[in-house]
């Protein structure tokens, strides 16, 4: 496995030695009738990079991924994937992509191993080559012992692992993952992150969508935040936190009914203050100082939590706290 994947991710890229970005998008737009799902977004993904689309449901992440995956034509703009045009070269591009869709699309009547073998055949691999790669991938996905089991009877986490293994059968140059861990329990998510991290270390270029901030922080070198079909911010997780939040966040919880009486008493305690129904958030680089300042004003919160700012704070600031749908 190590050998084959390393070979796949090495700079030699077969037919077209693309020195530029693996994905190049300018003004990329997708419309469905009246609805604009993706509204003129610009981004590039470099070889070896882990790139994330972050955003609430309905922000346009999946539509963007389907255009990159050459299964949904763009409505306007420029898009190049692996240096080729998705409209003219769809099958040639798809031959070098690995795709993990949001919904599982496995053959549930077939066994784990049969799913891998057949999928390899779609890429034109010989049966012998499919068998060799299937065994390596079963090992990588920790499914060797389940190789002969029918997919129908497997857990959600195992199906996801199989879907990821399947997406690697053609040793792709670019792996597209649409919400790879949505709906999984924490154990299954961590196992998947571990596997994806290994791929990343081997130099496989990952593009993923997620609305889990911890997933984005774990896996993405760089990400864009999408909201209402547009990109609203771009950068590394650390850059985004520095730009859109403070180093620390202090959460104050008051006894029932107290928070409503605090008008005018919070101003100036921090760079930015957010009042949620159940607690007050103080955005300040020094959380302890903010707590001291609050106590000095005679405020008596029931609980105080000082924590490091996370991508979630950035996300909520940029995309708002109201539900998207």
């Amino acid at each position, binding site marked *: 496995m190590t050998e084959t994947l390393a070979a796949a991710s090495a700079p030699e890229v*077969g*037919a077209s030695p693309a020195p530029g970005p693996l994905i190049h998008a300018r003004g990329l737009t997708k419309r469905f009738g009246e609805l604009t799902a993706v509204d003129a977004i610009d981004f590039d993904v470099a070889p070896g990079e882990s790139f994330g689309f972050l955003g609430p449901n309905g922000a346009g992440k999946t539509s963007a991924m*389907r255009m990159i*995956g050459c*299964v*949904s*034509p763009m409505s306007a703009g420029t898009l190049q994937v692996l240096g080729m045009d998705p409209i003219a070269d*769809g*099958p*040639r591009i*798809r*031959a*070098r*992509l690995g*795709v993990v*869709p949001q*919904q*599982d*699309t*496995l*053959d*549930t*009547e*077939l066994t784990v191993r*049969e799913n891998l073998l*057949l*999928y390899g*055949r*779609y*890429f*034109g691999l010989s049966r012998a080559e499919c068998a060799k790669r299937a065994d390596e991938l079963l090992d990588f996905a920790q499914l060797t012992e389940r190789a002969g089991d029918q997919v129908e009877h497997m857990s959600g986490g195992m199906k996801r692992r199989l879907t990821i293994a*399947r997406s690697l059968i*053609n*040793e792709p140059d670019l792996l597209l993952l649409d919400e790879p861990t949505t709906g999984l329990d924490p154990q299954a998510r961590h196992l998947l992150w571990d596997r994806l991290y290994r791929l990343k270390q081997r130099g496989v270029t990952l593009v993923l969508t997620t609305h889990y901030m911890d997933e984005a922080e774990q896996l993405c070198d760089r990400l864009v935040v999408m909201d209402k079909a547009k990109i609203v911010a771009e950068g590394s997780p650390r850059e985004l936190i520095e730009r859109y939040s403070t180093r620390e966040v202090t959460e104050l919880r008051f006894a029932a009914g107290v928070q409503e009486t605090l008008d005018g008493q919070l101003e100036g305690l921090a760079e930015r203050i957010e009042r949620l129904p159940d607690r007050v958030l103080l955005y300040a680089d020094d959380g302890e100082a903010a707590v001291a300042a609050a106590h000095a004003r005679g405020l008596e919160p029931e609980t105080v939590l000082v924590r490091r700012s996370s991508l979630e704070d950035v996300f909520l600031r940029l995309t708002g706290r109201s539900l998207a749908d």
Partner: protein
Amino acid sequence: MALAPAYSGIGRVFEHRLVLYLKTFRASIFSSFLTPILFLTAMGLGLGAYVDANQSLGGVSYLAFLAPGLLVATCMQVAAFEATFPIMAGLVWSRVYHAMYATPIRGSDIALGNLAWMGFRLLLVASIFAIVIVLFGAATSPLIVLAIPVAMLTGLAFAAPIAAFAATQRTPEKFAAIFRFGITPLFLFSGTFYPVESLPAIVQPLAWLTPLYHGIVLARGLSLGTIGVSPTIPLALVHLAILLGFIVVGTFFAVRLISARLVRG
């Protein structure tokens, strides 16, 4: 990764159906033999004994008259099934066609690979049926061999347009209507069990609108060895052309609608 020159997306899609089929191969082959045996025994021998007493078919035994009709009608039923539920499964339920579409396989490969599979499956069903007919002594001409491809083409004349329709559906509700108001009435009124000429003169032209009638006339002419007289060669070619017309038009729409469905996601 460059694709091998011999790469055939249609072949890969066909292979997928074959692998699935081999899972239930034995049960399927068993029922492929059982269906003609049951029908030919009950209707051909049982009912036939009464019909033959009247000499109403001009010297031809009812069994020999019925057998090619059932052969073609069975292919129609198999085709209607293969073109509905498996297509919906791939596009809606398991979504495996979307998984294929993420590879070098194209939408047209998925449509044509499935139709090619249906043709193969129909050939298998028709061959088994024809063997049973011969074993029953119900074929009066060696031309029965040619009734096999005729039955397959008749099946495809249904499969292609039905597959196109199936690609537009999100639930299988309307499939029941296809069987109830399409397949079953055709089975009963297209000349499988009695000559269409026995029906009232006003409804007889309706038979011409369906592929089943044309397939049965051809298969019966071959199995009874009357082709050249009934139907005449020019008429036989017209029947054949109508079947091919259904297949070509149906395939065109199946490719378009299945491709469109894959793009929509």
